[in-house]
């Protein structure tokens, strides 16, 4: 319908200054999201940090108070009709008609999609059900589904037609460990097929292994964004030397250029910064220290996450 076709080479998702104000509260405050094509983008943040609001804006469900959105090269909400058929979405948990069967619910979703070919509907629905392992219960009413089955059905609903971008909001909510693993491998296989995947979560462990990129939300702000490695480096790697001469060790670390050197009863530690960790050991040994133990704590994404968003159970906002 639009004269110019959407650009296919740009990022899958780009927002500039995206803001959503609900009354006096800024749920999302000027975020510049950048999801490169082909990335598996882990969209992290505590509950209430604005992840779901952002995702709803990406899908045109709520309109931004300010800022711009581009999904698969089309502006949202204006170009939603061009972009969204190629976007599969799981938003804030599964939602289906309780008195229809799983299959009937998928039929309804497919019927609503004007880009879907009715001639292949049956085959596509079967494939989607197969893919999430719901075939045996496809004829059961949705209300009889367990939470895990519901989640799978929602994922199946997003897979009815080929997608360039999958937006998965908390896809492992309510899933058992096995289901969580399946979702993870599903994400990996989607990425392998060339889809871009934007997966939001407040649980890091479940996305850390599959994400190529990470964005961290906190209280409506995007506090970090980049490749997983880049974001991990936001928090510093710490080297710890255990020896019977803590003061001497601290001096060596300091001379090497480590920062925030701390002396403890059993040794010394410091942030390695640009210093290669292996050099630390060499230097200590060279200085004649009896090193009983040497550890390098590269931060996990969780450390980064906690350092960016704070600890505890408080919800943001």
């Amino acid at each position, binding site marked *: 319908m639009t004269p110019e076709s959407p650009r296919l080479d740009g990022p899958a998702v780009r927002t500039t200054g995206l803001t959503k104000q609900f009354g006096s509260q800024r749920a999302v405050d000027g975020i510049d999201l950048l999801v490169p094509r082909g990335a598996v983008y882990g969209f992290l943040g505590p509950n209430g940090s604005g992840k779901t609001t952002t995702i709803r804006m990406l899908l045109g469900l709520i309109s931004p108070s300010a800022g711009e959105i581009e999904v698969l090269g089309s502006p949202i909400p204006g170009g939603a*009709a061009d972009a*969204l058929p190629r976007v599969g979405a799981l938003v804030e948990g599964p939602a289906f008609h309780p008195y229809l069967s799983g299959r009937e619910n998928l*039929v309804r979703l497919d*019927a609503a999609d004007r880009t879907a070919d009715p001639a292949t509907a049956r085959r596509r629905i079967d494939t989607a059900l197969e893919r999430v392992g719901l075939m045996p219960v496809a004829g059961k009413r949705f209300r009889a589904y367990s939470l895990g089955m519901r989640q799978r059905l929602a994922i199946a609903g997003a897979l009815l037609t080929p997608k360039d971008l999958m937006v998965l909001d908390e896809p492992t909510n309510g899933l058992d460990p096995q289901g969580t693993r399946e979702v993870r491998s599903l994400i990996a296989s989607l990425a392998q097929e060339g889809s871009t995947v934007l997966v939001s979560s407040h649980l890091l462990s479940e996305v850390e292994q599959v994400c190529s990129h990470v964005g961290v939300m906190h209280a409506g702000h995007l506090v970090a964004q980049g490749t997983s490695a880049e974001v991990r480096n936001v928090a510093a790697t710490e080297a710890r030397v255990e020896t019977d001469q803590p003061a001497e060790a601290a001096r060596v670390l300091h001379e090497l250029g480590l920062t925030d050197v701390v002396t403890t009863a059993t040794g010394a530690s410091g942030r390695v910064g640009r210093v290669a960790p292996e050099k630390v050991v060499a230097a200590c040994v060279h200085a004649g220290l009896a090193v009983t133990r040497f550890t390098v704590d590269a931060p996990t994404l969780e450390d980064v996450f906690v350092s960016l968003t704070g600890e505890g159970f408080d919800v943001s906002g």
Partner: protein
Amino acid sequence: MSAADATTDPTRSAAPPVVRRISARFFVSELRLVFRRRRNLAGLLVLASVPVLIAVAVRSTGSGGNEGPDFFGSITQNGLFVALSALTIEITLFLPLAVAVVAGDAVAGEANTGTLRYLLAVPVSRLRLLLVKYAALVVFAFVATFVVSLTGIAIGLALFGGGDVTLLSGTQVGFGAGLLRVVLASLYVGCAMASLAAVGLFVSTLTEQPIGATISVVVFSTASFILDAIPQVSWLHPFLIVHHWAAFGDLFRDPIAWDGVQRGLFVAAAYVVIFLAAAWSRFAAKDVTS
């Protein structure tokens, strides 16, 4: 930041063109949703039970009496009048209630179950969603009306027989012409119910609670009936959605008094236009947070 190192698969670079088909699939899906829902079927059953109740009651006492509504007295002469008696009775509450239940559910029900966000993300444009929802409501409005009249005709003919029809003005027309007038009356009532459905669709865009929307619509139609019965606000009467609803009785005069029916259709059309526009203006830019 790092767009360059994103892996891009060259086979994906040419996305398949988005084809938008003209298709009735979503509409058919909507009809299935409405007509396969047990609650709605139960509602239709209740609607159908009224003409049966009337026919059996009149049959067992042997007379409709002269104190009942217009058509009651004629039931024993011709079974077609069971249908008209049933419409007369049900038009005040049961038919509006049935329409209110389904119309209130239209958008609010989808919002309540959360399916609205998934439909919009498919994507279904909001205008298309409203139009498909309303089209299905119109179908339901007519089906509900014809459930009443067809059941009435069937039970009436079975218990009282057919034959020539004596109109309210005393003249007689053949059975075929009489049947045609019953069908016309049903179509007219169907239009009236379709106009109420437009009100219901609008209310349904205001809330995520389908029950609340339903109650509002019933309150709206009932309040209209009450106002219509208060002579002191007679200036308001021509604007009330229900004012001309009973005009289907005029179809059983000779010659047919089209005046009331025409005005009724005009008022119905005005309500449809106004409330669909209101629903659209309300829903077009609404934040869907359900």
